[in-house]
Structure formats: structure tokens, C-alpha cells
């Protein structure tokens, strides 16, 4: 009996693992299909601009406000910790490096997945449920090139800009708390930050991360929407899967990229 239960457990784990691997494979294949059918998006860039507006511009408020709060908390916590070592003048460095290297790309990608990724999935899923994608197919227009690709590129192009704005707002938040409220010297705050933040290793690496997150979130969001069962329940399940899978993908990719970036990619 216990052996049976163990075998069932192993089988269940195996089945779930296979399903996850299958899903990851299908998402990557879908990404390949999207890239192959992206010519229309670049020929008619207005389609992408429209999606940048919906995915990027409309995410600005949540990104900017969250960035400000995260920066303020970093300023508070940083000052609290650094003053134990008499280094509270370095709070600007702590705020800037935390944001530019990690929190900016990661948190903005998580927010982007919840705000824009879920919206992309719901929109494509509903288009499928109401036969709009079938109608497009019947008009000899590929839904991948006309619906999926512009949304994918809109997400990919929006993500780095959102991450940079998140970091910028975070630095402003850190400045407000540590300089304006607590009274850290503003000259030390900015000069130490400028001296410690390296353009290539900190800012460019942060941008690389946000581009990779943008690709992952947009691919997952469009894939889940396109593959959603054409029912209310199916679309709601797909939306949830987008947020969960994107969040896990962002954190896993961040770990891998951070490991490589700290070692210098070689």
C-alpha cells in the first residue's frame, strides 16, 4: 500500500513536470512563430505604437507610483542600516544600485505582467471566444501577424522604458526620504551615486534584463491568450496562468542573468 502511494506520488510529479516542460516548449515554439510573422508589425509600425500605448503608456501610473514608494522604502531602510556603520552618506549608492541592477527591472516586470500581461491575455482570449480570430483567419489574415505580433513587440519595447522610469522614480523617492526628510547631505548623495554606478555593468545590464523580461512576459501573455479555451472560465484561467508563469519566469531568469552578469558573461 505505501509503495502504491509512493508510486502514485512519483507518477503525479512526473506528469506535472512533463506538462510544465511541454507548456514551456509550446510557448517557445509560439514565440518562434510570432517572430517569424513579425514583418507586418514593422511594415505597419502604427499597430505596434498602438500596443505600446495600451501596454506601456497605460502602465505608467502604477510603475511611477510603485517606483517612488520602493525608492522611499529603500532610502529609509538603507539609512537605518548604513548609519550603524557610519556610512549613511552612501545611501544614494545603495538606492541606485539596488534599483538599477535588480529592483527596477524585476519589480517593473512583475507589475507589467500583472497589469499589461493579464490584459493582453484577456483581450486575445476574448477575441478567440467571440470568433474574432476565426473571422480574421477566414479573411485570409493571419491572427499571429495582425493580433499577436504587434502586442508582443509593444510589450518588448515598453518594458525597458518602464524599468528605467521605475528606477528613476525610485531614485527620486530615495532622495526625498534620505535627503529632504532625514537630512543626508545632497552633494554626498548624488556624487557617491555617480561615482559608484557604472554605465556598462549596472545600467546596461539592467536594460538587458528588462528586455529579456519583456520578451518572456509578452510571449507568455500572447501564448496564453491564443491558447485559452474559448469560454469565460478558460479566459479567466489563462489570465491567472499569465501572471503566475510570468512572475516565476521573471524570477528564474533574473537569477540566471544575475549569475552570468556578476561573472562577466565569460
Amino acid at each position, binding site marked *: 500500500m505505501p509503495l502504491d502511494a509512493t508510486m502514485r506520488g512519483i507518477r503525479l510529479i512526473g506528469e506535472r513536470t512533463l506538462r510544465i516542460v511541454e507548456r514551456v516548449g509550446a510557448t517557445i515554439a509560439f514565440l518562434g512563430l510570432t517572430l517569424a510573422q513579425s514583418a507586418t508589425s514593422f511594415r505597419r509600425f502604427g499597430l505596434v505604437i498602438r500596443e505600446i500605448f495600451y501596454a506601456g503608456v497605460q502602465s505608467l501610473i502604477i510603475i511611477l507610483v510603485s517606483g517612488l514608494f520602493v525608492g522611499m522604502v529603500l532610502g529609509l531602510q538603507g539609512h537605518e542600516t548604513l548609519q550603524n556603520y557610519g556610512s549613511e552618506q552612501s545611501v544614494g549608492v545603495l538606492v541606485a544600485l539596488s534599483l538599477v541592477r535588480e529592483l527596477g527591472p524585476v519589480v517593473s516586470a512583475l507589475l507589467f505582467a500583472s497589469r499589461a500581461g493579464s490584459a493582453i491575455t484577456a*483581450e486575445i482570449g*476574448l*477575441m478567440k471566444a*467571440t*470568433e*474574432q480570430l*476565426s*473571422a*480574421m*483567419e*477566414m*479573411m*485570409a*489574415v*493571419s491572427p499571429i501577424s*495582425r493580433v499577436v505580433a504587434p502586442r508582443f513587440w509593444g510589450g518588448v519595447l515598453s518594458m525597458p522604458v518602464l524599468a528605467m522610469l521605475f528606477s528613476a522614480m525610485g531614485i527620486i523617492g530615495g532622495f526625498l526620504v534620505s535627503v529632504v526628510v532625514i537630512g543626508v547631505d545632497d552633494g554626498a548623495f548624488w556624487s557617491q551615486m555617480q561615482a559608484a554606478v557604472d554605465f556598462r555593468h549596472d545600467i546596461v545590464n539592467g536594460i538587458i534584463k528588462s528586455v529579456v523580461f519583456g520578451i518572456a512576459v509578452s510571449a507568455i501573455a500572447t501564448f496564453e491568450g491564443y491558447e485559452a479555451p474559448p469560454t469565460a472560465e478558460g479566459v479567466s484561467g489563462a489570465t491567472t496562468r499569465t501572471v503566475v508563469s510570468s512572475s516565476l519566469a521573471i524570477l528564474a531568469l533574473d537569477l540566471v542573468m544575475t549569475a552570468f552578469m556578476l561573472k562577466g558573461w565569460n
Partner: protein
Amino acid sequence: MTNLVEISDLNFGYNDRLVLKGINLAVPKGSLVAIMGLSGCGKTTLLRLIGGQLRAREGSVKVAGYELNHIGQRDLYALRRRLGMLFQFGALFTDLSVYDNVAFQMREHTDLPESVIRDLTLMKLNAVGLRGVQSLMPSELSGGMARRVALARATALDPELILYDEPFAGLDPISLGVIGQLIRRLNDVLGATSVLVTHDVQESLKIVDYVYFVSEGVIVAQGTPDEIRASPLPFVHQFVWGEVDGPLPFHYPAQTIQNDLGLRGG
């Protein structure tokens, strides 16, 4: 008269369940043919096979000289540029205005200047009596109006073959009459050929040239509207005159109710 659609010895099923069995059907050029039957009898599946959305397991589906069982993506899209399809609830693109919905195919498939597209779009909308709603969004239209706009969109490129999936579903009597007359008139004015899938007997018999009756995946009767009205076949008689008693089974095949309820003697 040559046939635009020819189906011979067609079998089709989902998984192990055979939905269409040994279908033979022909649609002559210029005619308006109805495929009728109860919900779930396989008529929408048949329409999807004609539109190339599904592939037959056995048999042949020929549309405008193309054998759809072996057609490649490029040829399928070439064929679909010559087709128009009206979906059950219109399937209008909800992010585009009425005008942009009708102009969609012209913009996708032609190099016409915007001024010509505008004139053609307004003419198509005028043909269905809805030039006045060009700036509205699909969500602002009634069910009947949405169906008429979808009809204008389906005929935007003057298709050779127009497929209608339940065009009368959920319409009030006036809208139903309007849609029926539009289907007939557009077929004749455009010199098109039309296949209409419906279970609305009385409205369809007023406008079509020929009828195929499908029951449980098999064509059980066929003929002109007058022949259908006078048919002595019990199934056709029951269907046309909406009789409660007849050969159509009320219960979906299942084991005995005593068995399901766990009663003795089941």
C-alpha cells in the same frame, strides 16, 4: 451549371466520435443553398470544412477547384480572399469602429487609396442600410445591426462564395426578415454563391434555392423549398412544421435512468 462547392463521401469526427458520415453535397454557382438540422447535428462542422477551418478524415471537399483536404496555407489564404463568412454573432472586431471593420479587408488585401476605400466602405454600409452608424463601435450596436455590419464586412471584397453560420440566431422578427432579404439580395446582386447553415426553417425556405437536411451526421433529405415543405418524410415533416411528436429523439443516448439513479432492476 457548374458547382462551386463539391463534397463527396465525406467523413469527419472529433476524437473517436464521428460527426459527419458519408456526406455528398453540391452547391451550384450562383445558388443559395441551406444546410438545416437540429443543434449539434454537424451542420456548423460542415460549414467549417467548406471554409477550410477543419480538414476531413476521409472523402473530398472541393471549393472553387481547390481540394481542401490537401491544400497548403498559401493556397488556402488565396482561396479565402475569394470567400466571405458571416459568423453566428457577427464576430466584429471589438477594438475597431463599424467603418474600420468593413474597411479591414480592403486595407489588408488591396493597395487602394484611402479615398477609394472610404467610398467602397460607405457603399457596403449603405447596402445593408447602416451608413449612419459608421462611427459607432460594435458594442454600441444591437444584435441585428451587428449582423448587418458583419454582412457588409463579409461582402467587402465582393466574394464568390459567402458562408453564413446561423445568421438568424437570436434576432427579433423584423431584423430576421431584414437579414433574410439582404442575404438573398446580396447573393443575386454580387453574382455570388451562398451556403447558409441554419435551423430557422420558415425564414430560410423563403429565400433559398435548395435545402440539405442533416440529422445525426447524415444528409437525410434534400430538395427545393417547395419539395421540402411537401416532404412526406417524418423527420422533415416534424422539423419543418415544428411538431413535438415525431422521430427525433428527445434524449441523448445514455444508459437507462434506473442504472444512473442506482435503482434495482436497472
